[in-house]
């Protein structure tokens, strides 16, 4: 069996996250709670506040405590995956298996919380709401959540990386027209950074935010008011 390129980038991103966690752990151990936070500690406090604020707006205190770590780590993972195109490795989120499994986790969480807060009877009943005839449509809407969550992330990242590939090829052939210095793709050096900023950094950050917000919103929708 042949290994895909993405396997190595998944391992690279995971390694970066592990190193990051060890660094944060070390600086948190050294951190004096009475002093003013700065550097890595301040960054982590801001991230945790952000995730907790988002979860508290949509769900309750208990779920914030349960889901906070998962949402936070998923956010870091998706963001690092999306911007890993800057290191010219294939982004893990440009592989449909990765985004499908991330979306599948969200869908399982939605079902689990629906079951937990409505009870078994209420959970079964939620498939036949508002009237029993709509059962097939409710079933389709469950599947479409999975499809839209995974395809949105995958489509955005993969279209960005394919467009960058096409633009690099085009710039290389244009700069090849110039005689002596044409072999070096100097147009790419001038034009590509701005596009990298948009396709990798901006789209990556945006899609991370959207994935997390939609996950939290879908889970919060299952709770009683």
């Amino acid at each position: 069996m042949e290994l895909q390129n993405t396997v190595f980038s998944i391992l690279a991103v995971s390694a970066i996250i592990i190193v990051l966690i060890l660094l944060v752990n070390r600086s948190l151990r050294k951190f004096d709670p009475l002093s003013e936070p700065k550097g890595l500690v301040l960054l982590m406090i801001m991230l945790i506040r952000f995730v907790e604020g988002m979860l508290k707006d949509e769900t309750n205190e208990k779920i914030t405590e349960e889901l906070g770590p998962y949402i936070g780590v998923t956010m870091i993972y998706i963001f690092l995956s999306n911007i890993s195109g800057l290191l010219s490795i294939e982004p893990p989120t440009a592989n449909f298996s990765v985004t499908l499994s991330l979306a599948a986790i969200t869908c399982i969480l939605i079902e689990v919380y629906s079951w937990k807060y409505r009870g078994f009877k209420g959970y079964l009943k939620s498939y036949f709401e508002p009237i029993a005839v709509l059962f097939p449509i409710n079933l389709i809407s469950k599947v479409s959540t999975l499809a839209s969550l995974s395809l949105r992330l995958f489509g955005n990242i993969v279209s960005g990386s394919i467009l960058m590939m096409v633009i690099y090829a085009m710039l290389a052939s244009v700069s090849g027209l110039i005689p002596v210095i044409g072999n070096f793709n100097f147009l790419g050096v001038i034009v590509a950074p701005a596009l990298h900023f948009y396709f990798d950094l901006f789209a990556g950050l945006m899609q991370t935010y959207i994935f997390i917000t939609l996950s939290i919103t879908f889970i919060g929708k299952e709770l009683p008011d």
Partner: protein
Amino acid sequence: MEKGLIAIAAALSVMTGMVTGIGEARVAQQAVESIGKNPDAADQIRSMAIIGAAISETCAIYGLLIAFLIIFVLGA
């Protein structure tokens, strides 16, 4: 001949983006209008606008995906 037809098919499926562009612009327009009317609710309006734009973008992304499938599966 066949390659040209595949290219035309891919271009047609990407045309879902035309209407999606208008839809997303409407989301942004309404968000700006309501922030103008009610500046205190700017935070809530911003997150709602992003979610709305993301959901309406799904349609264009399905079209893009089908274009990729046409190019890489049929055209390979």
